[in-house]
């Protein structure tokens, strides 16, 4: 049977939900797999709801559009849950039985008792992952939150590898047929001013990604065949 994950990512404007999904998708393809993405957002503004849908597989994918019944959901921002900043409510709507919810938060969140019950009924695995904290620790900024999450999900699905992810980040920042929206282009220039040099930017993103990957392995979330990767000391100390 095909190894197949339909992933729904929900976050808020400015977090790089769409960028993250492009990178995961490209990384899976770089590693010889198959992937498609569908971004979904309204007005492009900070803190407005954003969703992106990524399908990854080791077989051809034909299905298009939003994912109603995902295997995995990724929550980029706790406000998706606490403030309902999402196109999909509640955040786990449609999650398949035995599905995974990867949530960017420093620890377990207190969910409404009905939500906790429904998640339990469908045997959902809740993975709380401090992606923003990790990004601040490793890169000194929260803008690499998406990289931490993509590293983590890369290890969970086991459909890509660190080389594939690194190449995807390089493609993203060195521009290889990457279509971005006006809002994202403006954000890019902010990021670039902050880092001055592109190579430094890529190195830090990759370092956060590696940390995310290892976090998944260390917590036993990763796919059976996935191993820890090396974390470069230079980037970590910056």
């Amino acid at each position, binding site marked *: 049977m095909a190894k197949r994950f339909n992933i729904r990512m929900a976050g808020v404007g400015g977090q790089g939900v769409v960028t993250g999904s492009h990178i995961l998708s490209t990384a899976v393809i770089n590693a010889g797999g198959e992937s498609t993405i569908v971004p979904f957002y309204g007005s492009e503004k900070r803190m407005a709801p954003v969703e992106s849908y990524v399908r990854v597989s080791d077989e051809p994918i034909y*299905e*298009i559009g939003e994912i109603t019944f995902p295997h995995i959901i990724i929550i980029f921002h706790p406000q998706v849950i606490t403030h309902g900043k999402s196109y999909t409510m509640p955040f786990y709507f449609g999650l398949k039985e035995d599905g995974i919810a990867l949530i960017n938060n420093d620890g377990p969140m207190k969910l409404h008792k009905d939500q906790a019950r429904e998640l339990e009924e469908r045997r959902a695995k809740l993975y709380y992952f401090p992606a923003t904290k990790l990004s601040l620790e490793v890169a000194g900024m929260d803008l690499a939150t998406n990289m931490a999450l993509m590293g983590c999900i890369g290890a969970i699905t086991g459909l890509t590898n660190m080389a594939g992810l690194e190449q995807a980040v390089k493609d993203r920042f060195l521009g290889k047929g990457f279509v971005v929206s006006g809002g994202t282009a403006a954000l890019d220039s902010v990021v670039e001013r902050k880092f001055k040099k*592109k190579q430094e930017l890529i190195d830090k993103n990759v370092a956060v990604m590696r940390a995310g990957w290892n976090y998944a392995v260390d917590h036993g979330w990763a796919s059976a065949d996935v191993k820890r990767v090396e974390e470069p000391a230079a980037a970590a100390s910056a």
Partner: protein
Amino acid sequence: MSEALEAQQKTNPQGDPITSVAAPKSDGKKDPHADAKRQKIVTPEYMFHEAPRTKEFITGSEAAKEAIRRSNVDLAVAYPITPQSETMQLVGVLYGEGYVKEYYRGEEEVGVMAAIAGGSRSGVRCFTATAGPGTLRGMEGIASWPGHRLPAVAMFTCRVVNAPLAIQPDNIEVAYLLNCGMIVFHAENQQDMFDFIMAGFAISEKNDVTLPVGVCCDGFFVTHARGYVRMQDRGIKLPPREAWRGAVPVLDAENPPARLSRDAPVQKSNFMAYNIHAVWQQEVWAAVERSRKYISKYMGGMLTAENVEGADAVIIASGSACAQSREAVRLCKEKGLNVGLIKVRSLRPFPTQELRQLCGKVKLIVVPEFNYVGWLAKEVATAIYGYSKAKIIGGPRVYGGQSMPVELIVDEVESGLTGKKSTNVALSSIMGGAVNPDEVAHFMRSI
């Protein structure tokens, strides 16, 4: 390097989204049209069947752009309606690179469709793309193109046109296009967009066709998302339009009088007018019929059929519904159900004979659609009436541009096979002689 990127971001006078495919900047030494000038002309046969292809992972809009690059287009007219795809913006980049000879932004769709009519009538190869409300606004012009025998290709990236307003893909606008007299293709994915547009030019300009071709896709799903597209080298292109081959002479503005309306009596209600109208429309629809052979030749047929023989049930779909159906077939297989798939590529002409032949022994047909009215289910039922005893489930359907969950299609196949009541399809949309209403539907029974 970062400086170069900043400069690129400022080149955005009209506030359009910036894409990675900006027009090349001229340093005053290199001719920005150099690559376009080096393109070699090849025959359509070589282009479609023999030319080696390489695979790229691009959006539907980029696929359309690449098709236009290789199609030797003379005139492209854009209007950036919202919702829209990036297609016409990217075609503008091609104009900057010299691959398209003329390009401008029309006032709005009435003006754009009139400009396409004028361009085509004057003998050049024309292209435009619009979406949703833009299609409907341009419909007056579009509906008159076939009668004026205007070869052109128009791309319709379907969006919602009925209330309440939304900008997601709902392909109800195809229902309006089907009755114009134009040739209508429905693309499933980015590859289809690329292939159908290029084949569209070749078919459109055949002497015994001389009709516009509409290439539809379910916008956003196809235009804004990426997929694999196998493309020929960008150094080759189709032969130019040879207007003298067309069924009607081109408008010669240099040598008046030039008349668009053939005869004065057309404008009066008398028997001459009715007669002329009848002859004219009969000829338009006869030309639609004659395009069948070219669709077979350049596109490999009006439909594709997979695993139909001996299947428990057959899904018939077009556009994005096909993509969802492929996954439904896979999920059904995991449940032990043997399901076939017929993908309808050409809606006008419609593959009536092919469906009659394929569906003769089929017991259950499921027709999933991305619109409320179910235009494809009606087309299928009309085509196979009297030739098949199949129960036809006209659904599931999604509205307002919702993505169809694959699981809904699986549900309909299962309920159709087991006799379990359908949860998603109205009684009026379940067709077939031997259908007992009490057994099939409980959804909106009273309708």
